[in-house]
C-alpha cells in the first residue's frame, strides 16, 4: 500500500496549522527526553521573608553545566502587566552557560530584571521574565502557611503560579549567538535552551511559594504536595511578536512540519496492529477528554473550536470503539478523522496516534533543526521559465488573489519602535505602511511572478536581478520551497480575514503548549509543562506525562 505524505496545500493552510496540538515531537517533551539523565539541582536560594532575592538551578552532566539564575523582585499591582510593553516583572530569568561567579551574579542582578533595557553577555544563553498569577499565588501561600494544601479546583482552573511574557534567545540583547552552541549534542533539537529555562523557572515558582509560606508561619507551614505541584505548569502570554518567526524561518518551519508528516505517514503505513496498541490509544483518549474540561477560555473563537473538538471527539469515540482491528487500522482511523472531523479534532487524533509509537516518532525530533544558511543563496543561473513553473506549482493558491481589493491587502506588519517587536495594523487607517516588513509573501510572490512573465523566455534569474531587486526576498523563498515544500504558510498573511492567533498556535503547539486561551485575535495565554515530572523526579520520566489525568 502506498501512502504519501499529506500535501503541503492541505497541511499548510492556517485553519489546519492553527489547530495543531502538542505531541511527542513538541520541544518541551523532547527537552525532557534529552535531559532526563542529567542532574538537576538547586545551587543557591537566597530569598527574604517575602520571597524576594535570587535562586540558581543547575543542570549538569559530567563537565557540562547550565544554570538558571532567577531574580524575584517586588512589583506593585499596578505595574503588573503581561504586555510586552511592561518594564517591570515579578520574576526575571537568565540561562547561564556554566555556573556563574559572584561577579556574574552581581552583573546579572543589575541587568536581567531590566530585560530589554538591560544588557547581557555571550556567557548567557536565554532571557525571560514572568508575573505571578496573584490570585493563585496568594491562595497557595496562605493555605500552605496554615498547614493546608491549596484548593486544587482553583489551581487547575488557572494551571500555574507564574506566567512568562517573553523568552528571548539566539543573540538578542547581547545573548550568545546560536553559533556558539549549535554543535553541542544535547542542544540538537529546536529551542532546547528556551525549554530548559521555562522548566527550571517552573521549579523556582514552587520553591518561592514554599519559602514564603514557611516564612509566614514556620511552625505550621507545609510544603506544596508533589502531586499538586506536578499538575501545575508555567503560563505564558504570547503576542504577535511570535507570528513573524514562522514566516521568517521557512526552512525551520519545513523541518517541524515534515517531522510530523513523516510520523503520521509511518503510522498510517503500519499494516497490522495488536489489541494493546488500540487500548493504549484509547487510554490516552479517555484521559485527555477529561483534561479538556480544564481548557478554560473566554475567547468565542476558541470556545467554538473546543466545543467542536468535544463534539467531534464524542463521535470519533463511538466510531473508534466499534472499529475492528483490521489491516491498515491507523490509516482507516486517520481517513475517517480527516473526512468526518474538523481540523482541531483531526490534528488532535494525529497527535494521539503518535503517542502509541515512540520508536517511530521520537527519532524524528532530531530532524527538526536545520542550517538555514544553506538555503539562503539564490541560484541566479536558473531559467526564469523554470521559476515561473515553480511558482505555478508551489504557489498556485496565491496566483488568483486580487491584491487590488482592500480586504486582501488590509493589514501590514511592522516593527514597533517602542518595543522592537512585530505588530500588525490596518493599512488604510494607520500610519507606517511605508515601513512594512517583508511578510506579505503572497502579494510579493504574485508580483514577482508577473515580472518574471515579462522577461524574455530562456533568460536567467541573474538577468532579471540585474534589472530589479525589489522581490529578491521572495525569490529566495521560491527556491527554498522547491527543496522544502512545507516551508510556506499557504494563506495571505495581510488579508483582513487573517487570524494571527492561528500563527501563534502553530508555533506554540510545537513548543508543547496546552490550554490555548486566546485573549483576542492577537495574543494568547497558554500553559507549558503542566503534568511534567518535577525536577527531582525527571530521571523517572517516561514521556507519558502529557496524558496523565490532572485531577
Amino acid at each position, binding site marked *: 500500500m502506498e501512502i504519501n505524505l499529506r500535501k503541503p496545500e492541505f497541511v499548510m493552510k492556517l485553519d489546519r496549522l492553527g489547530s495543531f496540538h502538542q505531541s511527542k515531537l513538541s520541544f518541551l517533551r523532547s527537552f525532557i527526553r534529552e535531559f532526563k539523565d542529567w542532574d538537576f539541582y538547586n545551587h543557591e536560594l537566597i530569598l527574604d521573608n517575602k520571597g524576594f532575592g535570587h535562586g540558581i538551578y543547575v543542570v549538569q552532566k559530567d563537565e557540562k553545566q547550565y544554570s538558571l539564575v532567577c531574580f524575584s523582585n517586588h512589583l506593585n499591582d499596578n505595574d503588573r502587566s503581561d504586555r510586552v510593553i511592561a518594564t517591570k516583572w515579578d520574576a526575571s530569568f537568565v540561562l547561564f552557560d556554566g555556573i556563574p561567579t559572584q561577579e556574574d551574579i552581581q552583573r546579572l542582578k543589575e541587568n536581567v530584571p531590566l530585560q530589554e533595557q538591560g544588557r547581557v*553577555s*555571550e556567557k548567557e544563553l536565554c532571557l525571560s521574565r514572568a508575573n505571578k498569577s496573584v490570585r493563585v499565588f496568594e491562595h497557595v501561600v496562605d493555605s500552605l502557611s496554615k498547614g493546608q494544601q491549596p484548593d486544587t479546583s482553583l489551581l487547575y482552573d488557572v494551571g500555574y503560579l507564574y506566567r512568562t511574557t517573553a523568552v528571548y534567545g*539566539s*543573540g*538578542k*540583547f*547581547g*545573548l*550568545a*549567538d*546560536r*553559533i556558539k552552541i549549535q554543535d553541542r549534542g544535547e542542544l540538537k533539537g529546536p529551542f532546547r535552551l528556551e525549554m530548559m529555562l521555562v522548566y527550571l523557572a517552573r521549579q523556582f515558582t514552587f520553591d518561592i511559594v514554599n519559602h514564603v509560606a514557611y516564612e509566614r508561619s514556620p511552625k505550621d507551614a507545609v510544603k506544596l504536595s508533589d502531586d499538586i505541584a506536578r499538575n501545575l505548569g508555567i503560563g505564558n502570554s504570547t503576542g504577535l511578536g511570535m507570528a513573524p518567526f514562522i514566516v521568517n524561518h521557512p526552512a525551520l518551519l519545513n523541518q517541524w512540519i515534515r517531522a510530523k508528516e513523516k510520523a503520521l505517514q509511518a503510522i498510517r503505513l503500519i499494516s497490522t496492529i495488536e489489541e494493546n496498541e488500540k487500548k493504549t490509544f484509547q487510554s490516552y483518549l479517555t484521559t485527555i477528554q477529561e483534561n479538556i474540561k480544564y481548557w478554560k477560555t473566554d475567547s468565542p473563537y476558541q470556545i467554538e473550536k473546543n466545543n467542536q473538538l468535544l463534539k467531534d471527539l464524542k463521535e470519533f469515540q463511538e466510531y473508534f470503539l466499534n472499529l475492528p482491528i483490521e489491516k491498515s487500522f491507523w490509516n482507516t482511523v486517520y481517513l475517517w478523522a480527516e473526512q468526518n472531523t474538523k481540523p482541531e479534532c483531526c490534528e488532535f487524533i494525529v497527535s494521539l496516534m503518535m503517542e502509541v509509537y515512540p520508536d517511530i516518532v521520537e527519532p524524528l525530533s532530531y530532524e527538526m533543526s536545520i542550517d538555514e544558511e544553506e538555503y*539562503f*543563496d*539564490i*541560484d*541566479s*543561473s536558473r531559467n526564469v521559465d523554470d521559476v515561473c513553473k515553480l511558482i505555478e506549482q508551489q504557489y498556485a493558491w496565491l496566483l488568483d488573489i486580487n491584491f487590488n481589493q482592500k480586504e486582501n491587502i488590509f493589514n501590514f506588519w511592522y*516593527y514597533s519602535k517602542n518595543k522592537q517587536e512585530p505588530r500588525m495594523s490596518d493599512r488604510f487607517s494607520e500610519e507606517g505602511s511605508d515601513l512594512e516588513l*517583508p511578510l506579505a509573501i503572497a502579494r510579493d510572490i504574485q508580483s514577482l511572478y508577473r515580472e518574471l512573465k515579462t522577461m524574455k523566455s530562456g533568460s*536567467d*534569474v*541573474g538577468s532579471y*536581478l*540585474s*534589472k530589479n*531587486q*525589489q*522581490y*529578491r*526576498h*521572495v*525569490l*529566495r523563498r521560491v527556491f527554498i520551497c522547491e527543496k522544502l515544500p512545507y516551508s510556506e504558510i499557504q494563506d495571505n498573511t495581510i488579508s483582513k480575514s487573517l487570524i494571527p492567533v492561528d500563527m501563534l498556535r502553530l508555533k506554540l503547539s510545537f513548543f508543547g503548549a496546552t490550554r490555548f486561551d486566546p485573549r483576542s485575535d492577537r495574543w494568547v495565554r497558554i500553559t507549558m509543562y503542566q503534568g511534567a515530572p518535577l525536577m527531582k523526579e525527571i530521571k523517572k520520566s517516561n514521556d507519558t506525562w502529557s496524558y496523565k489525568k490532572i485531577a
Partner: protein
Amino acid sequence: MQSLYEIETTIKRVSKSQGLSWGISEEAGKAIRSLEQSNLNGLESFKRLIDYGFNNLTKLLQTNQTNTQNLCPIHFGLFFYDQSHKKEIHKTFNFYELREPLIIIPFILKAAKRNLVYFKLNSKDFSLSITPGNIFSLTKGEIPQSLSDFTLSVIPQREVNYSEKTWDELYQLSLDTFVDESEEKKLSGAGAGLTDND
C-alpha cells in the same frame, strides 16, 4: 559587545531604511555579520558607507556601464554574485572607483564558491585574490577605504602557481611510497596465465 545576530538584524534594518530593497538588505546584513565574525572591520566600513550616503553611490548594473565612479560595494558584490555564472563575465573589467572594497569580499567569496570561478582584483597599491576554496589573499598593503583605477578579473579556471621544477621534485618524492615489483610478481599479476587474444 553586540552579538552577531544583533549586527545582522541592525545592518539589515539600516540598509532598508536607506532605501535598499528587503532582499538586498538581507544580503547586506549577512555580509557584515560574516566580516565581523572573521574579525574584519565590516561594521565601521558599512558606517562610512552610510555616512557617505547610498544616494551618492553608483550601482553596478551591467558590464558595459560607463559610470563606475563611487561604486557601491553591496551592489558591486551582488552583481558578480548574481552574474558570474555567465561566460561573458569571465574576463577582466576596468573600474574607476569602489567605495569600501572590504564589503565586496563576502559576496565574491560566495560567488567564487558557487560558480567555481576565481576573482583577482588589482590596483596600484592593493590586490586581492578570491578562490572557490573559501580562501582570499591580500597582497600589496591593507584594504583601503576606497579603491581607484582597478581591474577585476573573473577567471573560470585555476591558475598554475608553481614551477614545473617544484612539481617534478614533489612527484619524485611521492614515488617513495611505491614498491618495486619483481619480475615474478609482474608475471603473476592481474591477467596472468591468460591469453589476451581470446
